[in-house]
């Protein structure tokens, strides 16, 4: 029971208080891509959740060796990218032999869903917090779900911008960035005054 509570509290923390987009600004370009393709959001968020969980599990026993190294900042990302590569291959072959019909979709989209800043970023943030296994899992899943939540929220706001009289020079990327910044401001009120690491 305590494990479940711990898991849930870490998940909610990662989902709202330390939202991956609003407070850590990870995976924004992928998010902007997804906003243009709203049907993909649910699928890719699901993929992201699976990938982060699996890679986190895979790298969890190994990261103890890396932590105390002098070159932690170099070795940790390389370890995670290697883990992600393994997970990518595993998932790909799993799909290829179990659901052959889905192979085309996965060969096109799985790569983007695995190798992106949101996935690697959430893994790195989790490892920097030095949490135990349950919390790591909860935090990772919460971060992935938080990504989907932020994408939906931002996508809704940006469609609203189509009907605003946005000046010509602000249309497109600039207004999306300002909108994102202002939303992050709201979440900062919750977190308090601290820089993310």
């Amino acid at each position: 029971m305590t494990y479940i509570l711990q898991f849930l509290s870490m998940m909610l923390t990662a989902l709202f208080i330390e939202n991956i987009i609003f407070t850590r600004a990870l995976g924004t370009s992928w998010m902007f891509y997804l906003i243009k393709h709203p049907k993909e959001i649910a699928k890719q968020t699901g993929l992201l959740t699976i990938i982060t969980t699996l890679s986190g599990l895979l790298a969890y026993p190994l990261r103890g060796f890396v932590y105390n190294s002098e070159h932690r900042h170099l070795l940790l990302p390389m370890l995670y990218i290697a883990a992600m590569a393994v997970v990518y291959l595993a998932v790909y072959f799993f799909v290829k032999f179990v659901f052959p019909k889905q192979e085309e979709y996965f060969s096109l989209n799985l790569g983007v869903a695995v190798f992106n800043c949101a996935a690697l970023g959430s893994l790195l943030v989790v490892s920097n917090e030095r949490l135990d296994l349950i919390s790591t899992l909860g935090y990772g899943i919460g971060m992935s779900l938080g990504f989907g939540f932020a994408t939906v929220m931002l996508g809704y706001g940006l469609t609203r911008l189509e009907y605003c009289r946005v000046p010509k020079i602000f249309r497109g990327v600039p207004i999306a960035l300002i909108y994102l910044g202002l939303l992050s401001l709201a979440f900062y009120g919750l977190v308090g005054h601290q820089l993310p690491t």
Partner: protein
Amino acid sequence: MKEKLMFQNAPHVRQSESVVTMMADVIIALLPVYLMSFFYYGLRAVMLGIFGAVTCAVLSLIGQLLLKEKLNFDLTPIITGLIIPLLMPASIPYYVVFSACAVAILVVKFPFGGTGSNLFNPAAVGFASAAICWPKEVFSYPATMQSLEVFGETTARIAQSPAYSLSLGAVPDYNVLDMLLGSAPGPMGATNILVVAACGIFLIVKKAINWLTPFCFLVPYALLCVLFPRIGGSPFDALCYELFSGTIIFGAFFMLTEPVTSPKRDFGKMLAGISSAVVVFLFRYFGEFEMGFASALIVMNVFSPIFDAICESVLHIYRHKGAILASFKKETPAETKPAEVPAEAVPEEEEIPAEETSSEEEVPEEEPAVEIDLSEEAEPSAETEEEEELSEENEEPSGEEETV
């Protein structure tokens, strides 16, 4: 006779109320609040207000010039500039007010297209950004009844605000009457609960704001505070301290009701009020800062179009009720013959005040089903309709009683 004739579209009589009168009402309602803060903190409070208003007005003119728009002297930036200092302590340095106003106008308003297009409440964002940037200045409140230096650094005695005590889980050392009258330290405009509430009721009576928004915000918020108190003691104390500390009452009347960023329909306003009560409560309960209200308001602004969409989908069903019912009844023929069939034979469905403008084509466009909607909920006589209207009007005073 011909020379002066001008073109104008159909309704040739308009309501006397306009944006200017609405905004002027809000400004008039803010003046007593400034008077009270003048009473408690001296001239500096008034100077901060004037400084904020002038800054915002000048910046909005600059923004309009930069966007090469037609210059439009609307009063909305002045309201923004008057609200921002009221959310801050009277000892706030002028540069903090300036930066908050600059963010409100140049970041929140103009990139989105100026008045009427902003997606966030400018005052809330301006205040939130200042609070994040200079938390020490924004959240240290001077004790009341001391005249502060008009310009420059202040050397006022700093007191702990009730909101901060609450966030620590301690009972504030001011009694409820102090907090009602505003002699507890806090944001310079938001502590005078009685004055602020009176000004809010003035706005409601003048119909510059809708009574539903503050009502639907404050009642659920009070309920939440009673159910989950942060401090010990009787629920009434907890309620009063939670409700009267921070910017809850001020925000409910002056910030939550901002027309641009709030939902359009009454139903949407109700939903928004209730959900912002929950979000504000959560932000204040779990948040690090005392600025829960402003942050929660920014988050709620994102959701207001969703509330509009909910209203629209409800009304869509209402408008197509006839057609939906008909299709439903077709599937279940066991029921009695629907009333639609003879009513469709009503020959002259549409009675538009027929003039040249409402041309002939529009008449057959009207679907007969819609007329049935009206007839279905037919009142038996004109008297009942009058009662219905009276009850509509009677609801307003009841809302005012609750909010005081």
